Every structure is written in structure tokens, then in C-alpha cells.
């Protein structure tokens, strides 16, 4: 008897505002026209993907006190684009990042409940939190959170929205014209919530949506973030896309579920994955080197180096050697609001390591930045890619992938045409959608409806 092969989950990430996205390629199209969003979403749906994913940023990036101009700049409003995409897709899940710091639970709950209604049960929310005053300058709240408060705020924010979602039970609307009864509960939507972040009460005004609430994604990686995800998330958007790091993360996060009374299959682990697909493995390798060179121009190399050095390096030649000066230690101020910069804890160590590598291999600044920037997660022919993805999922590195194309909007086309059919032939990816909701696609059971109080 052969065991059914473990199914892969796939999602399409709209290319981001970072140097992964190669806007300079002749095939690179608009990042703001709706036609680009339609193209990627319909390609993903044609390929029977689980969902489409859109990230969010609430302030244009800056470096050295100026707006960062080397990457794609400009993005749409998450809720508005996902609602419009619901009109041009039928099955595809629609996931978006929404910040819990610069929003209020009542408003976000009604937006996600609305998205779930408008899409027939396909909404998902990647709950993120930020705490920088830089982003706060665009908002009423303005002030920022202490780093240690951010998970408490995010957790209380999200759990408050759950109370709002659950304030309607799904059978509240009778709409019986003959008897004149519209509601069967005079208190439908009633809620009252008080904690140290929120003190709100009243009536929620969006009745229960098809999924009950959006599928919950989290992306946290710290100890606190992992606990939060294990306790409450339906899926985790992880940056551990490598084989060994991914396996360790997967084992860790799945092992945490039991203490919250949850089974391993109730949390889907999905790393972001970049890819370069060629006719042969050798051609893909060659293309991969070319793409990384496109991603790291000389100007970009200097900017990436500044993010570690935390100082202005514009006087340095990207084709020359690394700077003699040491990185400025202390609070990273060169690129406010950029999480990857803030998280660099040991710039002196990084600089030492890079100097050794540059010396040993004779690398210029640009060559070094190409060398140290991550190689694409999957490089190869369609057969190689399909085999490797299956192996990752079978070996419990992850449950699937959120694919990040480097070209907008056509960067997923070849994957859909060449890799997906192979996965389908091998029985590891769906050939048709079998359920109506995103929970169905992800193998998550329907949520129970809470009893009336």
C-alpha cells in the first residue's frame, strides 16, 4: 500500500519594493496599474495556486535622509486591490499584510469581513506589527511602540478582531418578508472589549462572513513571534527557505502546537521562495547569475553596504575594494523603518567576515554584495525544480511555498506552464480546486461557530 504523497501548497507573491524585483528588465511592467495585478492573480488561479499575496508598507523607504530611489517605489492599498481582484478571480485566496499598529480593530475587522464576503470566503490576513516612529509620522497615532510591546499590541489587536468576527453567528439574518423578521437576535453584533490597548464596545456592523474570519498569517521569527503563531495562526510566512534551516524551524514551530491544544496540520508553514527557471539546469544557473547581477547594480551595492556600515559610503567605488572605515555601531539610523537593517546585531563581525571573503576571492564591493545576497531558492529546469520542491515538502522543510517572481507581472508565467503540470502529474499538487474557501485550499477545517452568550 502506498501512502498518498504529501500535497504542496503554492502561493504567488506580488513582487515587492525591494531589489529582488528587477524593474529594469525589458519584460518588467507596471507595479501600480491594475492590469499587472490581474495578470499575476489570473496566472496563479490558472495554475490552481492556493492564494495571491500582497505585502504592505506605510511609508516610502529612505536611506541617508533621502527617499530610496533604486528599487520599485509605489504600491496600492491592500484592501482595495484585493477587493477588485475578487471580481476577476473565482477560487484564488486573497491574502494581504495589514499592520496592527497604525489601524483600529473595528475598522480592520469590518474590512476583512467585507473582503471575505466579497470573495466568497477567500480572505487572509498577514498580521504584522511595526513600532517605528518613522512610519508613525503618517498617522494620527504617530507615537511608536516599545519593541517589547509590539507582540502584546498585535496579539490584543488580533484577538479583539476575533471577538468582533464572532459577534455574529452566521444564522442571525432571517430576512423573512412575510413575518417582517430580519434579525433573529436583537443584540446581533454586540461586543465589549477592554484591555490595556483597547477599550471598545458596541455593535459590529458586518455579519459573519463565509470563513467566519480571515485565514491568519504571521511572519514572526523571534521566540515571542513563534509562540504567538503557534497559539493563533493558521499559516506562517517564514524566511527559513533553506533545507536545513527550514527543517529546524518546521520541527520547532510544529512542536509548539500541542501545548495550545492544536494539531500539526492546523498550522501551514510557507517560506517565501524565489526561483529561476531554465530549459536546463545549466541554463538556469547562468540565468540566475545574470538576475543577481541585475538585482545588485553598482549603486545598489553601495546602498546595501551602507545598511551594514550605517554610514554614508557614496564616495566609494562599487567596483573598488571595501571601505577602510569601520561600521558605525549603535542604533541603525541610515535606513529608518527597514526591518532587515534594524535586525543586524553585529555589524563589526559582518564587516570582518566580508573583508576576509573579499580578500580571499579578490572581490569588489559589487561582486561581494552579489556573492553575499541570497542565491535564488530554486534554480533549475522544471523537472529539477519540481523534484526539489517535492523533496522539501516530503522532508518537512515546509508545507509549500510563497513564490516571489522577480519580474512583474509575467514572472510566474513559465512556472505555471512548466512546473505546475509536473507537480500535478506526480500527484503532489491539485489539478482542480476542490473547495470554495481558502481554508479549504489550505486543508484547514471550517471554524466552529461560537454559541450565543
Amino acid at each position, binding site marked *: 500500500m502506498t501512502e498518498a504523497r504529501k500535497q504542496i501548497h503554492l502561493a504567488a507573491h506580488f513582487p515587492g519594493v525591494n531589489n529582488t524585483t528587477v*524593474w*529594469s528588465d525589458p519584460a518588467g511592467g507596471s507595479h*501600480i496599474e*491594475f492590469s499587472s495585478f490581474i495578470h499575476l492573480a489570473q496566472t496563479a488561479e490558472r495554475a490552481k495556486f492556493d492564494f495571491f499575496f500582497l505585502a504592505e508598507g*506605510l*511609508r*516610502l523607504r529612505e536611506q541617508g535622509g*533621502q*527617499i530610496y*530611489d*533604486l*528599487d520599485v*517605489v*509605489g*504600491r*496600492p*492599498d491592500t*484592501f*482595495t*486591490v484585493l*477587493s*477588485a481582484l*475578487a*471580481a476577476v478571480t473565482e477560487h484564488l485566496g486573497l491574502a494581504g499584510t495589514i499592520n496592527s499598529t*497604525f489601524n*483600529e480593530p*473595528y475598522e480592520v475587522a469590518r*474590512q476583512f469581513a*467585507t*473582503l471575505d*464576503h*466579497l470573495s466568497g470566503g477567500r480572505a487572509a490576513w498577514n498580521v504584522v506589527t511595526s513600532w517605528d516612529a518613522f512610519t508613525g*509620522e*503618517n*498617522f*494620527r497615532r*504617530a507615537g511608536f511602540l516599545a519593541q517589547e510591546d509590539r507582540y502584546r499590541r498585535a496579539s490584543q489587536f488580533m484577538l479583539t478582531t476575533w471577538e468582533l468576527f464572532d459577534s*455574529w453567528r452566521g444564522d*442571525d*439574518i432571517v*430576512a423573512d*418578508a412575510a413575518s*417582517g*423578521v*430580519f434579525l433573529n*437576535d*436583537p443584540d446581533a*453584533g454586540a461586543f465589549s472589549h477592554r484591555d490595556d490597548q*483597547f*477599550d*471598545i464596545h*458596541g455593535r*459590529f*456592523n*458586518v*455579519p459573519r462572513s463565509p470563513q467566519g474570519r480571515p485565514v491568519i498569517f504571521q511572519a514572526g521569527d523571534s521566540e515571542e513571534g513563534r509562540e504567538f503563531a503557534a497559539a493563533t495562526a493558521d499559516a506562517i510566512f517564514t524566511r527559513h527557505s533553506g533545507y536545513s534551516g527550514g527543517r529546524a524551524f518546521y520541527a520547532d514551530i510544529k512542536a509548539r502546537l500541542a501545548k495550545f491544544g492544536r494539531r500539526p496540520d492546523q498550522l501551514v508553514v510557507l517560506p517565501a521562495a524565489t526561483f529561476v527557471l531554465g530549459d536546463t539546469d545549466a541554463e538556469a544557473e547562468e540565468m540566475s547569475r545574470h538576475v543577481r547581477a541585475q538585482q545588485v*547594480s*553598482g*549603486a*545598489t551595492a553601495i546602498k546595501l553596504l551602507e545598511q551594514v556600515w550605517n554610514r554614508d559610503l557614496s564616495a566609494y567605488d562599487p567596483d573598488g575594494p571595501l571601505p577602510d572605515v569601520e561600521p558605525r555601531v549603535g542604533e541603525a539610523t541610515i535606513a529608518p523603518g527597514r526591518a532587515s537593517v534594524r535586525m543586524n546585531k553585529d555589524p563589526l563581525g559582518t564587516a570582518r567576515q566580508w573583508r576576509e571573503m573579499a580578500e580571499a576571492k579578490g572581490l569588489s564591493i559589487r561582486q561581494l554584495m552579489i556573492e553575499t545576497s541570497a542565491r535564488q531558492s530554486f534554480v533549475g529546469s522544471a523537472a529539477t525544480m519540481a523534484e526539489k520542491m517535492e523533496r522539501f515538502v516530503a522532508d518537512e522543510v515546509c508545507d509549500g511555498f510563497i513564490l516571489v517572481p522577480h519580474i512583474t507581472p509575467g514572472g510566474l508565467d513559465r512556472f505555471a506552464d512548466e512546473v505546475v503540470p509536473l507537480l500535478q502529474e506526480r500527484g503532489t499538487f491539485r489539478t482542480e480546486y476542490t473547495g470554495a474557501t481558502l481554508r479549504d485550499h489550505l486543508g484547514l477545517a471550517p471554524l466552529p461557530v461560537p454559541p450565543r452568550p
Partner: protein
Amino acid sequence: MSTDTPLHLAVALDGAGWHPAAWREASAQPGDLLDPSYWVGLVQTAEAGLLDFVTLEDSLALQSSRNNTHDQRTDLVRGRLDSVMVAARVAPLTEHIGLIPSVTVTHTEPFHLSKAIATLDYVSQGRAGVRVQVSGRPQEAAHFGRRQWEGRPAEEISRKLFAEAGDYVEVMRRLWDSWEDDAEIRDVATGRFVDREKLHYIDFNGRWFNVKGPSITPRPPQGQPVVAALAHSSVPYRFAAEQADIVLATPTDPAGAGVIIEEVRRYQREAGRPDAAVVILADLVVFLGATQQQAEDRKTRMDDRFGHPYRSDAPIFTGTPAALAQLIGEWKDAGIQGFRLRPAGLPVDLDLIVSDVVPELQRRSLFRTAYGPGTLRDRMGWGRPANRYAQGANVGPKATA
């Protein structure tokens, strides 16, 4: 004067219609109010009638028959969807009609709404607007928990709410302009995606919020999406005259309309805005029927089910499509530039507007017989405005703060 100035005609969509008992009519679809196909169908019908735009009602509280508290009624429509998102859901499935959701600015973030409406403008290819509304209701304040409800005299509260709304619209407008049209350069030689000299901090500092900018969303197709406001008295007339493009007023007769128009135009001139910058429409609730008797019978039936005669902030018309077309023509002669009709029952009154009222108006040469090309702004007669931050452009209105 009536035949050479275009008549603007819009409908206001809300639930099963504006009459509280409309959901019990045989033609109503009260079980579909949360179904996107219901809203797509209504807006497609309005588009088949060549209407200028639809507005979508919304609020940050559950519907209530009482002004300042929730009620416990179970015999009326309760629950709704976010109007900006409904407009976005409808946008790809329509082509010409303007989409103007209603948004409460009292508790929400101007940065978020600015990019949402800019994005609605992208997904509709230049058909977006927003009807801004304020909320002084305690139940909405309690849903946000960030400010106390102020139990002070109505006039003073109203002034504060509309002053905040003025700042809010100013911030939205600056954010819409914070990207110049040619900011995205994609200069492969220098590796620059944007020309940062063409991105602008808006640096708004006001009493209720400070917003730095620029927007995360590039300047939308219309440049400035359309801002509409419903107004019943001097404080909102002044707010609308200073900041809105469309004023929705509720005069009871042509003479009253003339008085309101005069007041709005006076405030406009004080704000340095030409008359043509603001279009003034009259709101009208409509109960239509093939005969006067049928229309009245419908209204009586709905009123009986509701328990008392329907009252509205707007005047109420009950009659035939031909009589409505006649009235529209008369009001237009008095200087009203068009109407936002509030169908008492959906879809029935909307269907009759499209199938009977519009052809009556066309017969009288009062209304277009096809959509022209262009954006919602083009249809309203304004075209695409210069960017306040572009070199050589006039600077926009100053902050009220």
C-alpha cells in the same frame, strides 16, 4: 439655459433601498445584501442608464432607528459591507460609471483613505470619488475608544467635526499630488526607478493629526479623485464649498435650491474657487410607479409595514417617471445641476429610473444618450487638474489648521 448645460444624474445605493420597509417588498432581495453579485447587478443597471455615478452608503456603526444609541429592532435591515471595498469589487465589472463610496472621516486615518481612493481610481481607470461624512455619534466613538463623545451644543460640535474633515480632505488632496505624474522614470542608466525630486513631503501639521507623506501610492489616473459631501446647513456648506467637488443638498423646492446655491457659491468665492469648480446636486427620495396611484400605493404599503410615514432629510417624490422627468427639468431651470436620486426600494425604483425616467429625460433632450470617453472628472466638467507640487503649478488651498 437648461439644454446646453449637461444634467448630472446619480443614484444613492443603500441596503434594500432608502425606505426602512423596502426589504419586505416582493421585488426586494433582502437575503442578498452581503452578496457581491447584488451590488454588481445594481451598479451595472445604473450604468445601463448612463448615470454619472453611484454613491454607496456606509457607517462605522450598525444601523439604528435612534440617533445616538443602538436599538434592538429585529424588523429592519441590519449589517452592511465596507463601501470602498464594494466599489472596488464592482469596478472591474463596469466601464463608465463613477463610483463614490461614503466614508466617515472622524475616526479614520487620512493616509489610509487617501491611498484607498487612489487605488480605487486605478482599479476603475479614473472613476473614483469619495463622499466624506463626519460622525458625532457616541456609538461610533465607542467603537474606536480613542475619544470621548462630546455632549456639547450641536453647532459647536459640528464646527469641530467639519474643521477636522477640512483638514482630512486637505491631507488626502496633498497626498494625491505628492507624486508628480512623471515621478516614475525607470532610468536604467542611473538605476533610478523614481526621480525623488518629484516626490513631495506634504508636511501637514494640524490640530487633529500630522501627516508627513509622500503617499505610498502614485498619483491616481484622475489626479484628484472626486470629493463629494452631503450638506444641510451653513457649516457643512462652507466645508463643501472649500474642499469638495460635488455638493449634495436637500432643498425642498426650486426657490430653496436657489438660496442654497447662492450660499455655497459665496463661500466658494471667499475660498478663491470659481463657480464651475463645484457641482451642486439635489438629493431626492423617489417612490416610482407606472401610475400616480401605483406609486402612492407602494409608498403607503411600505409606510404601513414600517408603522408610520417615511421621513427623510431629503424631499420625497412619489409619482410616475414622466412626472419625475418633468420635475427634474423644472429644478434644472432653477440652477440645480442635477440630482442624486435615492431609490426608496431596490432594485425596483432603480430599474424604473433606468427604464423609464432616463428615456423621458432623453426625449426632452435633457440627458445624454451615450457615455462619452474619459474619467468621472471629465464627465463632471473639470478635466485633470495640475499638480500643486509641480513646477509652475498654482499652489492648492492652504490648510485650515
